[in-house]
């Protein structure tokens, strides 16, 4: 063992001994409190928007979006990414920022109040709650795209032709 190695070993051992000499609570398991769930969910929406945008870009750059079948799949990606944006806004307004506060008056009536932004923001929230108006067309276009692709007589051959 060289002199330099000896010095390194002695320094490391010294540092470990020093840590043992001054103990603190370990905190080995981090607690996952209340806001973490919504943060993770919002991250998932951003990730989803990103992946749909990338998919649209790839379909476009490979000129697949000009063909029947793939074109509908591109529309599906567009609607689903818009839905994700809408859902993200709704979650942000009521659960993250707390700018919208809702209270059920009865089964079919709700009280929607905004802490800032006024009635405009209340209406934005109300419309954002109708997010199925975007995700249902998204899945419909996915279904249409796959129907067209699977019903093509020579889908496999058409696919081969597309390979540059």
């Amino acid at each position: 063992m060289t002199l330099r190695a000896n010095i390194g070993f002695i320094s490391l051992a010294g540092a470990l001994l020093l840590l043992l000499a001054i103990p603190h609570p370990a905190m080995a398991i981090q607690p996952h409190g209340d806001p973490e769930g919504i943060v993770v969910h919002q991250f998932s929406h951003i990730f989803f928007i990103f992946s749909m945008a990338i998919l649209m870009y790839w379909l476009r750059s490979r000129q697949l979006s000009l063909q029947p079948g793939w074109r509908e799949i591109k529309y599906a990606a567009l609607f689903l990414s818009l839905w994700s944006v809408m859902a993200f806004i709704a979650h942000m307004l009521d659960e993250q920022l707390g700018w919208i506060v809702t209270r059920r008056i009865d089964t079919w009536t709700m009280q929607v109040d905004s802490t800032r932004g006024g009635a405009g923001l209340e209406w934005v929230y109300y419309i954002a709650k109708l997010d199925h108006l975007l995700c249902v067309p998204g899945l419909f276009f996915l279904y249409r795209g796959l129907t067209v692709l699977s019903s093509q007589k020579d889908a496999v051959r058409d696919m081969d032709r597309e390979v540059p």
Partner: protein
Amino acid sequence: MTVTWVPVISVDVMGAVLMIVFSVLSVRHAWRLNRKDPDNLVWTYLLWVAFCLAGFAISRSAGHILKQVILVSGLDPVWENVRPVSGSLNTMLLIVVSSVTLFFNRAWHIYREIFTERKALQETQAELISLNQTLENRVEERSEALLKHEKQMAQTDRLASIGQLSSGIAHEINNPLGVIQGYTQLLLRGEKPESQKHQDLQVILKHARSCKAIVEDLLNFARRSAPEKAEVNIHDVIKDVLVFIQRRAKMEKVQIETHFDDRVIPMSMDEKKIKQVLVNLLMNARHAVGEDGRIVISTRYDVEARRLRVTVADNGYGIDEKNLDRIFDPFFTTKPTGEGTGLGLAVSYGIIKNHGGEIQVSSDPGKGSVFTLILPVTAAKDL
């Protein structure tokens, strides 16, 4: 503001049901697509995307429907217990869908590589099958070509030897013939034209001239006389020869066709000698077709190789295979005695060789023969 929640609840429940329906149908079609071509990674990818989206749609929609049912039933505390589980499941599935979607580019790239390699393999396999199937034919063709080439080489060697021999003999005979011709002409001057001696001397002179012509032909065959080249258009030469032949050889009933290549340019050649070659070939063709046959003369210019091909084809009786190797030999003839010296093709061979060209023949006995002259195209300025 106080708003009715009916549209939100209706859209939520109906939308949730529709999402389940469309996602299940999507899986069904993606499944069909994948079964159509299970080796296609892109279809497998779409099946995975459809599966994940269906999982997410069902989880989310079930959660939404359950939420509305619970809330409408007034069991709000129950929903507070279910909500974290449903929400977490949705979050997890949304991340899974996003992750799978990001594999599109990789799937496409792999598919493209597989496709390219498969195509190359298929092409190679097809080529191998084709090679296997045609191997025997190819070997046969190559062998025939080799044999033909060997025959040509042998013929060229033989003709070169004959040419050397002919040249020597012609030179040796040429001088005595000149002397015979000169002395005969001298003797003729001292004889009266009506005398028997004058007539005898005329016969000697005539035959001496014939011998001289044969000697000259032999020298042409042996390529001893250099061609006198000038820039001429081969088409004009052919037309002149045709006029001459048609006037001389009673070819009224023989159908003559010409197919000239417009790209032919004027080229350097000995016009007189090339005419002699064409006359020889056309006279032979005329003899072969009889009185009402068909002769086709065509030209073709190979611009890249700078070679001109002149073809004289007839539908006459053709040449027997056993004679094909000998037709350029001096004094070889199949015509009856007195109708030909057997020097025409030998002389033609010598002339074309002297121009740096080739003369080729192919024949189908009973159907006709094709003579092809291949001449290098050189303009006068290139010489």
